């Protein structure tokens, strides 16, 4: 049996934005670590997208050598406090753990989080910087891809500047994922401060492509290479009738108002209005975050999803927490029209029942409409969480950067090299909406490719 992790009580947490999962204490971490069998060719490692040496760091936790454990993790992953909290562990590392076959997998994510937090709380210096190379590299976007690319380059001795369009660094980590899942002051800001300690400069309010073009970065500002980590932030809508009614938000708008602009706090100026009954369309992490945020703002919240719970792409823990907090799951249901009142405000939705038939080429069950099953439900707010596509500004404004038909930047797989000389890209901007750890992995790989390029190119 896994050592249970302490959580904020349901009655308390639905009234505030405090973090729900409280993490392991030292004793609990050591106890949980002792369950690990230290497997030789460990399957957990194979399932981690960045190949963290899991048995080794867990071995050090067992011996209470937490700094050593940190050293191991940081070789692979520079944001363990974040990944430990948000990785979909059940399909990654923990999904590969042998113990999971018969009982419960080792809580690898929680242990990684424990070490990450230990480092932050004890101000441990984990990075060893190489001598300065006196070469400038620009990183566009400060999400996980940009952050990990920047930190890797800084460690390698480059002078790195991150350009961020918004007023705060962190990408989805600050504007998307809510406080109750990933604390901003305690975790995200601290991870970013560590980056600043490495000498990375962050310039906010700079929209690359508008404030300054990629060509200007090279020709006028003296950067020798550029990494693009601009994410996939452009929200999709369903294209159904009534979708532009007042009270229909994209999840990004809703979460940005709540997280980045702190609209839930009275003393902040940004408004947010949700009413009594809220429908969230979608079944991913984004939908769960929107739903749980709406619960905390006092609404009755329904998740509307066209497949069943088994097909939901959200992390298990999120689905579990959402249910505990009273979110109602209306599965096998799809909106066909949004109804508005005479002032243009949402008053409800026409919903249609679905059933699953067969599987598509990716192996997912295909939802099919049930004829004549339409019904109307009343809602004050509708939140669309049906996916996003890459941010458009760079590709709009830079013809040298090729994109594919899904608007993703085209790159060489191993290096992240784009179609423009000296420009690399990674993260959601390349893959479409994916995960924090994949974005970080891509950022890091690109950093090594940039190092290779600049070392061979113009010494």
């Amino acid at each position: 049996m896994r050592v249970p992790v302490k959580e904020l009580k349901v009655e308390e947490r639905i009234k505030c934005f405090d973090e729900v999962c409280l993490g392991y204490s030292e004793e609990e971490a050591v106890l949980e670590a002792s369950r690990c069998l230290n497997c030789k060719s460990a399957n957990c490692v194979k399932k981690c997208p960045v190949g963290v040496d899991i048995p080794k760091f867990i071995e050090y936790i067992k011996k209470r050598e937490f700094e050593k454990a940190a050293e191991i993790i940081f070789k692979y992953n520079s944001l363990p406090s974040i990944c430990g909290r948000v990785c979909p562990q059940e399909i990654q590392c923990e999904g590969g753990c042998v113990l999971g076959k018969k009982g419960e997998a080792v809580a690898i994510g929680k242990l990684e989080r424990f070490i990450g937090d230990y480092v932050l709380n004890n101000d441990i210096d984990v990075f060893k910087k190489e001598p300065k190379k006196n070469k400038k590299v620009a990183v566009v976007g400060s999400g996980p891809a940009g952050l990990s690319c920047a930190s890797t380059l800084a460690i390698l001795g480059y002078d790195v500047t991150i350009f961020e369009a918004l007023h705060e660094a962190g990408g989805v980590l600050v504007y998307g994922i809510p406080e109750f899942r990933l604390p901003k002051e305690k975790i995200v800001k601290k991870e970013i401060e560590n980056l600043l300690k490495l000498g990375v400069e962050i310039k906010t309010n700079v929209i690359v492509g508008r404030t300054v073009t990629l060509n200007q970065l090279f020709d006028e500002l003296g950067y020798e290479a550029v990494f693009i980590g601009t994410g996939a932030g452009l929200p999709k809508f369903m294209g159904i009738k009534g979708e532009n009614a007042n009270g229909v938000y994209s999840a990004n708008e809703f979460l940005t108002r709540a997280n980045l602009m702190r609209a839930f706090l009275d003393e902040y100026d940004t408004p947010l209005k949700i009413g009594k009954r809220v429908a969230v369309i979608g079944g991913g992490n984004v939908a769960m975050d929107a739903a749980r945020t709406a619960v905390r703002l006092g609404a009755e919240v329904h998740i509307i999803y066209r497949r069943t719970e088994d097909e939901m792409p959200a992390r298990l823990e999120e689905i579990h927490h959402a249910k505990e907090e009273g979110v109602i799951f209306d599965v096998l249901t799809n909106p066909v029209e949004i109804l508005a009142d005479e002032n243009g405000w949402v008053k409800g939705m026409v919903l249609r029942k679905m059933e699953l038939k067969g599987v598509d080429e990716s192996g997912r069950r295909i939802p099919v409409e049930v004829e004549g099953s339409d019904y109307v439900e009343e809602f004050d707010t509708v939140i669309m969480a049906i996916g996003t596509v890459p941010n458009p500004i760079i590709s709009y404004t830079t013809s040298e950067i090729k994109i594919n038909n899904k608007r993703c930047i085209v790159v060489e797989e191993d290096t992240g090299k784009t179609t423009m000389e000296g420009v690399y890209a990674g993260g959601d901007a390349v893959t479409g909406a994916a995960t924090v750890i994949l974005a970080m992995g891509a950022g890091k790989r690109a950093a090594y490719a940039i190092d290779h390029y600049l070392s061979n190119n113009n010494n």
Partner: protein
Amino acid sequence: MYKIIEKNFLAENIVMFKIKAPMVAKSAKPGQFVIVRIDEKGERIPLTICDYDRSLGTVSIVVQVVGASTCKMAKLNQGDYILDFAGPLGNASEFVNLNEEELKNKKYLFVAGGVGAAPIYPQVKYLRQLGVYCDVIIGARSKELVILKEDIEKLGCRVYISTDDGSLGIRGRVTDLVKKLVEEGNTYDEVVAIGPVVMMKFVSMLTKELNIKTTVSLNSIMVDGTGMCGACRVTVGGQTKFTCTDGPEFDGHLVDYDEVIKRQNMFRDEEVRRMHHTSECSCF
């Protein structure tokens, strides 16, 4: 932090600020806007770029006080700092992409409503520097609210004024002037109308009848201004567009104005509450 170099009242509740923002000044083009956040707790306010000086590194904006945030802004003074000033955002006006040859024989009619004279100014200035013919109509409720008239006249174009009360220019609406100018035999290749949405709607209806291409600049509610939230979506020609990345200028004959108007009122209750919260605006 971005320093306020200069502050001037253009009318009782309309303020012009000149802000030090070299990177924005360097790239700014007519038609684009910035997003301003006054302080840590402030919202992100979109404002059109009214003028820029690349050598001094300054950008001018004109703010009309309509609610809590613009009120807070109007209270700032020369020497104060603004926390965030991001831009330029949005696409430059279409004519910026035309070369001198293509522009040479074109005639433009600009129609500004109220504070709309501010976004019109850099456009007229740009075209006049290339010697392009421009007429300008400014409409306002009364004489005191007509802004930038002399500045625009100095660019070398004829300026026509309409006011609701007849205190300056003709008594009537900007559409009356558009009709009059066309009836008098003036021809235009394009009308650019910027102002309150209802004004843009009526100008567009008229120019559709007159068969003159018309461009409008929409001021939808925005959050990020970078294409990330969809708050600014509008229906243009039956398709959903994002004002911040696809606009802010659109074909005036294709915009669903009624939807724009409804969406602009989305947070009215909250805004009224917030106004009371911050107590009455007392910047003047």
